[in-house]
């Protein structure tokens, strides 16, 4: 059985973060829990835009909410995005491959044009 309570599927996460405003919302929430008026101020967009995008993020499982007094507070639910260590390890693997490629480029580059004094006795082939 496919657990409904599991984190959002990759696809809904992709959809959710495909929109720049939603990515800015996520960034703002990454800094801490906020209510709608704080988010409106931080992003400089209308309240209805914030509410609309928040509801999309909520349905993707990226944002949770709680009510305290007159306010509703929203927070980032990072689980669907995975742990930061996982991202960074994946990026590290990418960098390792780039540095391998850099080594290949270096091996293929001609020597530097500033030749030190040439050695008198070149090695003979044979």
């Amino acid at each position, binding site marked *: 059985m496919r657990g409904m309570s599991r984190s959002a599927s990759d696809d809904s996460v*992709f959809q959710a973060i495909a929109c*720049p405003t939603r990515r800015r919302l996520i960034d703002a929430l990454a800094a801490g829990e906020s209510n709608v008026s704080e988010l409106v101020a931080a992003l400089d967009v209308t309240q209805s835009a914030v509410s609309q995008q928040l509801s999309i993020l909520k349905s993707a499982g990226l944002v949770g909410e709680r009510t305290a007094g007159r306010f509703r507070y929203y927070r980032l639910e990072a689980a669907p995005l995975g742990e*930061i260590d*996982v991202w960074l390890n994946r990026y590290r693997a990418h960098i390792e*491959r780039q540095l391998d490629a850099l080594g290949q*480029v*270096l091996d293929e580059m001609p020597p530097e044009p500033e030749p030190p004094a040439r050695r008198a006795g070149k090695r003979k082939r044979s």
Partner: protein
Amino acid sequence: MSRVRVVRDYPHPPAKVWRALTEPELIARWGMRVEGFSTELGARFKFYGTPNRAWRGFIECEMLEARAPSRLRYSWVDRDGGSPTYVSWQLEAHAGGTRVTFEHSGFQGLNGFLLATFVMGPGHREKLRRALPALLAALDDHGHAAP
């Protein structure tokens, strides 16, 4: 804040490694196509990749430090309104070659996720292997895409 740091030794002198890190046509061979690259402080340049549904396909950078042949540092913004992260390259003469320390720092929020997922893309290794010859063929002598 998190960072990625990788240290590598290459059997080549720092001056040569410096060229590979600062000449656009060479950068394109191990990394990404770059336009506007310059080691002048404050120079703004862009790395280009393949856009996808969650990534605009380029990275905006600003040169923050360039001391040939030992240190290079630039900012990195991979999406509109994204907060910058920072890339640095440290080169030291070591054992007849060069010790290179790559560091990418400042990850928080979505930065790492987007970078790991979209900028490099899934199956990047295969893509790189296939795309590299085509990419090189598509570049003119200055490392720009041929029209």
